């Protein structure tokens, strides 16, 4: 299935959307406008000639300094049609995308990972929390402007630290208790 086949099949289902065919070396690649994403995905999943019932991957790439800087990439698989498609959505800094978790359950964590790594917000996502990074992490490490060669100690909770005096005081206190 080529990109133009898929765009032609989508045209009646998602009216007035401007899909854009992109060149690729592997399989059909289509740029989808962000506001029409959910409609497009639902059509891709349910339309008879398409049946992209499986979500393979959602990820993103940061093309800094290009604007808009991010591209979110959706890889879909149609087992019954033996076809794959790549959807790409251009996202700027601070822009949000609609979640597709209502279409493929498996999209939930994939979108969480994209938020965790790139800071791209998915509107309507029920549980947009840190996934791979610790909950109190600052920044989004897969961004190109996130520093790499830094020596930063991992932000974790402080271990219990007891000074020598406190330690001795504790011992003394316990000793008194035991004498009773």
């Amino acid at each position, binding site marked *: 299935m080529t990109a133009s086949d898929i765009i032609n099949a989508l045209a009646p289902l998602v009216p007035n959307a401007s899909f854009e065919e992109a*060149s*690729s*070396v*592997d*399989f059909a690649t289509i740029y989808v406008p962000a506001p029409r994403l959910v409609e497009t995905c639902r059509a891709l999943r349910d339309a008879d000639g398409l049946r992209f*019932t*499986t*979500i*393979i*991957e959602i*990820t993103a*790439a*940061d093309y800094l300094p290009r604007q808009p800087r991010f591209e979110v*990439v959706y*890889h879909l*698989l149609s*087992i019954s049609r*033996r076809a*794959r498609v*790549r959807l790409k959505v251009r996202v700027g800094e601070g822009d949000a995308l609609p979640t597709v978790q209502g279409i*493929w*359950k*498996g999209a*939930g*964590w994939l979108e969480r*990972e994209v938020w965790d790594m790139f800071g791209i917000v998915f509107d309507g996502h029920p549980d947009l929390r*840190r*996934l*791979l*990074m*610790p909950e109190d992490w600052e920044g989004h*490490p*897969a961004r190109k402007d996130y520093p*790499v060669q830094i020596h930063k100690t991992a932000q974790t909770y402080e271990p219990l630290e007891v000074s020598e005096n406190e330690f001795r005081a504790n011992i003394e206190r316990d000793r008194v208790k035991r004498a009773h």
Partner: protein
Amino acid sequence: MAELRTETMTVNMGPQHPSTHGVLRLVLELDGEVIQSVMPTIGYLHTGIEKTAEQKKWQQVIPLVERMDYLGAQSNSLAYAMAVEKLLGLEMPGRVKDIRVLIAELQRIASHLIWLGTHAMEIGAVSMLFYAIRERELLLNINELIAGFRFFPSYIRIGGLREDLPRGFHESVNAFLDRFPAKIDEFEGLLTKNDIFRRRTQGVGVITQDDAMNWGLVGPILRATGSDYDVRRYFPYLGYETYTFNIPTASEGDVYARYRVRIAEMRESVKICKQAISRITPSGVWACDDPRVVPPPKDKVYSEMEALIQHFLIYSQGFTVPAGEAYVPIEGPRGEHGTYIVSDGTNRPWRVKMRAPSFMAIQSLPAVVRGGLIADVVAVIGSTDVVMGDCDR
């Protein structure tokens, strides 16, 4: 009379629980022994490999990606190398493809052996682990033979293989292939009709085919629900269409069905390995003949100036990959392993992303185990064959 008050109990499982296959943490909400909800927490093994890869040259990424799914190391590097080769437009010679098929299938057997041993051990058949590890040892010896490294051989390179096969390779592989089918019979004799094992696994952790597709669980989990989707059959690569083998399936979608699918897969892998080893000549080409990527042979480096320059360039600057993007899927031991790479035309990757089957499997875990017993969690985790290195990357 005072009203009887009941409440659910929250139990923390992991991250150091022995049956969570690495460091997976589950917060279980229990009503007696029945699971009300599960909240998995991952990320304990996150090492930022994808970010690190952006700082490396293309060829230097191979040892990194092998450390993601550490039980199926060479599936990672195969998917990565094939993705880069796709962007470079390289076509591998037949012998390289055959060796890669052989290595990929041996890797699948090695990974399935660890799955079999640990899965059975967690359910209570402790001795299974020793039988499985004993066979896997032979496969690690083959890795040591080809690359001097048992776990992460980095033998598959962009443009072909690291070097030619060593002497004694065919003997080692054939010895393993001759011995192994009888060992699978032995494993099955211990488990397949074992009443305890069947009671622990049949009807447990059932997932329907539609759900498996929806959760993105392509691989043995989907094949245990009746689908015959296998990347090797649906999107053949490395000439898999020229091999004779079956795609094992089962229809029940439970833990026992996944067990039967993986056991049958090992038998099919042996079939493929036998065909591959009969095609591979003991010596011959081990890389494509593209001078951009593959360094010239050593005797030419010592005698010709151009070859010396080429050698120096490849090992100092690396090679550049045309701008673009590629996603190449392969059928790994845990399901569809894929690598998505983006190149900006330089000698370092712009973005590397591995599709992790374990990530998807753990995501679906709450839906699969809800309503089951707490002991079933261990059986289900074992049957999904998750590797946390693959999940967290």
